[in-house]
């Protein structure tokens, strides 16, 4: 295995271990045990991970259609990029049609990421709550998306993609990128809260 691939493998391991440590570090999630539920939480948890993502489900999405769309595309590109990063450690190759589609996705996702970065810089209220981590995280992800795009177009750029990906993975446990893990917990609890009380779905 080439050095960039070894580094990437190590970065995956470090990121996974660090994120697992962070998740276990907050302790077990307290569930509500004593107030009898009005309804079952399961339907609302399913809603939280499905319908609640639709653009009309929440004002935060319906009131900001451009940001919503940018966020959806950005994250779709990131998921695909992380998958491609993992697959880059194997001998698997994407079929040409899929590779072309991914190239388009990563290009659009990169534009969305940069757009969100510009928004963070330009919007006064957003800038007021931003910290350096917001910009570092965005730039690292954007760099990884750009590298994924480059590797899809020029196979010899694969080692750049692996190095950039390794840097992203090593940074992930340090700051806001931890939300990739914690949003699963918080979203489930969001569903449990509203589900037990009979508010949603």
């Amino acid at each position: 295995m080439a050095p960039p691939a070894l580094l990437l493998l190590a970065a995956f391991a470090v990121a996974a271990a660090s994120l697992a440590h962070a998740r276990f570090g907050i302790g077990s999630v307290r569930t509500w045990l004593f107030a009898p539920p009005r309804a079952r939480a399961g339907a609302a948890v399913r809603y939280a991970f499905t319908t609640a993502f639709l653009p009309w489900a929440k004002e935060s999405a319906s009131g900001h259609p451009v940001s919503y769309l940018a966020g959806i595309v950005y994250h779709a590109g990131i998921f695909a990029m992380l998958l491609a990063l993992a697959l880059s450690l194997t001998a698997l190759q994407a079929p040409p049609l899929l590779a072309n589609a991914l190239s388009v996705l990563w290009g659009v996702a990169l534009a969305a990421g940069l757009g969100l970065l510009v928004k963070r810089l330009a919007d006064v209220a957003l800038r007021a709550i931003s910290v350096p981590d917001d910009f570092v995280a965005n730039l690292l992800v954007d760099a990884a998306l750009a590298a994924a795009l480059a590797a899809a177009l020029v196979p010899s750029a694969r080692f750049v993609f692996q190095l950039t990906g390794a840097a992203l993975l090593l940074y992930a446990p340090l700051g806001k990128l931890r939300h990739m893990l914690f949003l699963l917990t918080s979203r489930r609890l969001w569903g449990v809260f509203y589900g037990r009380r009979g508010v949603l779905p």
Partner: protein
Amino acid sequence: MTEAALRLLRTGLDATTAASLEACVRCNLCAESCHVFLSDRESASAPAAKVQQVARLYRRYHTLAGALLPRLTGARTLDDAALAELVEGGFGRCTQCGRCTLNCAVGLDPAAAIRFGRAMVSAAGLVPAGIKANVAAALETGNSMRIGADDVRETIAWLEEDLRATTGDPSITLPIDRRGARVLYALNPREIKFFPLSISAAAQLFHAAGESWTLSSTDFDITNYAYFAADRVAAGEIAGHLYARAEALGVRTLVVAECGHGYRSLRWEAPEYLRRPLPFEIRSFVEVLDEYLTAGRLRLDPSKNPERVTLHDPCNLVRNGGVIEPQRRVLRAAAQDFVEMTPNREKNYCCGGGGGLLAASEYTERRLASGRPKAEQIRRTAARVVVSPCHNCIDQLMELNRHYGLGVEIRTLAEVAADALVARPGA
């Protein structure tokens, strides 16, 4: 001061809140879901900004990067200035209505995160004086207005006499401290002091439905200012007074009068604080009225309320309590022209008076300003009457009525329903 708050931050943070603090990406898409932000458009009023006040402290004491690279992550040391900001953000700019939670793009609970900030403020002893005084009163006397048992009995006796005279029905009673009744009807002390007619309305409805019920002269208080202060120990103790009273009277159902946070704290939160199930059920009076109607135990004539009526949804009863449709069914039966506000139900705006702010006089100006979205909602309905099943909201709505010149009448659901009562044959 900071030591106690720091101790709570280090050891008292539950995983649910920690997950929310970790998951917030500072996208700020929640801003417009907050009535405070809508009214002042200040960055500091956005829910994300208020969450970050707590999250920055969390990162400093709970994450490696926050401890080693505080500038990178925006981590902050807990000091007097940070606590002062938590007071301002958690109390001055937040009513804990939870509309940001409903609309959070990520799906975290900003209200819970901000509430933890309140808990730290509480540990530091910096809770606004008005809220603190009410907590002390409830712990010392069993109710937040220090009303003695004799005063309660006297008021109830007077109400019974008055009700018999006005209805011409000598069989109406307002039973008090009656063991073995099916229902204990617990009150907001403001009803005894300032709004006794809402007790009369409830009594008429219980009587018409043929309910076996009682009031209590002690530990009758459904309000819980310690819940507003996010002091779980005191909030559990205050709710425990009423639970113990319900157990002593041997009732099957504790019916909570029209009070949003009272319902939420008693029905949903306090059993978790006390970590014990309750031997009786807890219902809102709103739910009970709806059940009486459905069961045919009450007959209402909507023509007795001919004016246009709209409904305010108290956040703690509706969005955070799950009582959403019963009040609508009751109003449709009791009023001829019921119109909804927009938005409504769980999406409705806070009136601006929640979270204990009515007791925090230092925030009066902002409280009235943050009620503007609600005032505009009311105005758009062209209603003459605004019904709110929450005494706390009613106080705020009455002030908004004056402040914004709305020209409406603010009423409880029980009052409107009692006005629509049709006497049972033979009653």
